[in-house]
């Protein structure tokens, strides 16, 4: 067991080193943009996975928190000239608070109807921001004033700087997931995900745990919203509350491996790379092709590998371990 730990630490160290030097080595801004997308959606997937993966509360409404984070920091920046770094945290808090009433409503339903309720609440929030043009620019949205190089206002001249910001976010998300996975809360979450009634019967306070993990998940998703708005210098309800953000958050986690630390990251690498390749082959004019391919990948994973790519990887490693040490494996059995 110690052997395995040493190896995985080494792999992790190499991975971190590679990720840190990557934007220095690869200078093509097209490539760095793709890296940023991969890191961003990995982070959103990690946030989704905390609740959707471990506790199996399958939300398709995380765009609500992405949008709330984006709007909170933008409104603070444009109306009060407050730095998006502070706005980002504020957006997280707003999302956390919003998750309380939304969760109160949606957790009344279970399974697929929970999923539908989350879709409806996210769409309803989008409608609110479309309707009330007085405080959030309505359907037209607004551009973020470009201040040139201004790191204190989360505005950078190089794409590489944005890369490091979102890399930092992903690291925070993964560390939080790791900490939760190892704590009592992680076990409670998995218990709820396996069978909520049974978990409650053995004394897990399921409503409280679900509420808490929803708050954490919403907080993290909101951080991604602020980052994205700062990155593209634009906000409107259709982008900030886009259903496709909710879809992608769930998709990358399921394809990568639901309820695993690295699942959302691996899933995003596969899906975003596929999408980038498709775009460079076919051009961006063919609407629908990207999601058609995503849907086919999702169906294939569900029908043949419900544990996702992480499950495949684990099977592979186990088979190799057994192959290398047949004698030991036999004595254990």
């Amino acid at each position, binding site marked *: 067991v110690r052997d395995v730990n040493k190896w995985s630490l080494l792999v992790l160290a190499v991975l971190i080193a590679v990720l840190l030097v990557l934007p220095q080595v690869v200078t093509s801004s097209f490539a760095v943009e793709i890296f940023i997308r991969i890191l961003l959606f990995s982070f959103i997937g990690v946030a989704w996975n905390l609740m959707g993966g471990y506790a*199996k509360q399958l939300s398709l409404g995380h765009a609500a928190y992405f949008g709330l984070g984006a709007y909170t920091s933008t409104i603070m920046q444009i109306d009060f000239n407050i730095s998006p770094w502070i706005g980002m945290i504020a957006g997280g808090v707003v999302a956390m608070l919003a998750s309380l009433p939304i969760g109160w409503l949606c957790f009344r339903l279970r399974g697929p109807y929970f999923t539908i*309720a989350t879709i*409806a609440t996210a769409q309803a929030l989008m409608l609110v921001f479309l309707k009330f043009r007085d405080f959030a620019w309505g359907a037209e949205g607004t551009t973020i004033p470009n201040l040139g190089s201004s790191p204190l206002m989360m505005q950078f001249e190089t794409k590489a700087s944005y890369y490091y910001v979102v890399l930092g976010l992903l690291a925070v998300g993964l560390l939080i997931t790791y900490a939760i996975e190892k704590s009592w809360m992680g076990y409670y979450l998995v218990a709820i995900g396996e069978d909520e009634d049974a978990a409650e019967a053995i004394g897990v306070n399921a409503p409280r745990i679900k509420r808490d993990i929803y708050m954490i998940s919403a907080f993290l998703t909101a951080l991604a919203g602020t980052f994205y708005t700062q990155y593209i210098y634009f906000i409107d309800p259709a982008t900030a509350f886009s259903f496709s953000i909710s879809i992608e958050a769930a998709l990358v986690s399921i394809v990568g491996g639901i309820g695993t630390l690295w699942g959302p990251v691996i899933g995003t690498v596969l899906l975003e790379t596929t999408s980038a390749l498709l775009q460079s082959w076919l051009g961006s004019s063919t609407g629908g092709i990207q999601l058609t391919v995503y849907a086919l990948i999702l169906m294939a994973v569900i029908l043949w590998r419900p544990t996702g790519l992480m499950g495949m990887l684990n099977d592979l490693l186990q088979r190799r371990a057994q192959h290398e040490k047949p004698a030991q494996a036999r004595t254990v059995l």
Partner: protein
Amino acid sequence: MLETVIQAVVNGLLIGGIYALVSIGVTLIFGVVKIVNFAQGEFVMIGMYITFFLFTYLGIDPLLSLLVSMPVLFVLGALIQHFLIRRVLGPNDMPQIFLTFALSLLLLNLSLLLFSANYRTVHTFYSDEALHIGGIYIPVAKLIAFVVAMGLSGALWVFLRTTDLGKAMRAASQNRDVAMLMGINPNYVFAVAFGAALALAGAAGSLLMPFYSAYPFVGQVFVLMAFVAVVLGTLGNVIGALVASLMMGIAESLGIQFVGADSGLIVVFAMLLLTLAFKPNGLGGGRVR
């Protein structure tokens, strides 16, 4: 004023008939197969495209194309149940939700690729006809759609109540294991239920075509409405879904008349949120799950 209210109620009732066909399908699948079909709206879309192409290339009236769209979608439904859904049935929600969700994503984006995002319409000789009763204006195409929709709903209800297969379906929905012990083949019953639900969605598509445009995203409008109606009418309850759909149609139409033309969706969401807050088990009571 009174006339405006009555007119809005009539409009809502007429479109509510179409909502009913979609929601009855959703609730039938949920009741018997115990899954929520996220792709139900896309089958309405397929029904609309079948009707559109039959009319445009062969000149077949949308009402006659019911005889094509319903059987085609019934077979499609039975095949989907047999080859896809059957493989993910079980206690785990995740594969069930995301399989039908992936199906919805796939059909929607495939139709975007094949048919483009253009709006397709069909113009029949009765598309512009209307009856005037008192001061009330009733478009003939919508009236036909409503009457046929109610007829099909009634036929399904009679089928579930009186035929052996219908009774087997209700038995399988109440207790799958006991039904199996009684000699009911669940795979057969599920395939028929899924097929019947999709046939209703196809019928909704054909009936809509004389007065509604077909486009790849059209199903989303109807499926959202259906989900709310199914929760409101108590999950798995056919009559509940029917009544709730008519109510939703009326509520939406009153919203459009008195709040604003684009407030239809807001009314739907408001109804869903109110239902969740105060009657999470639906108006008829019953179980949440």
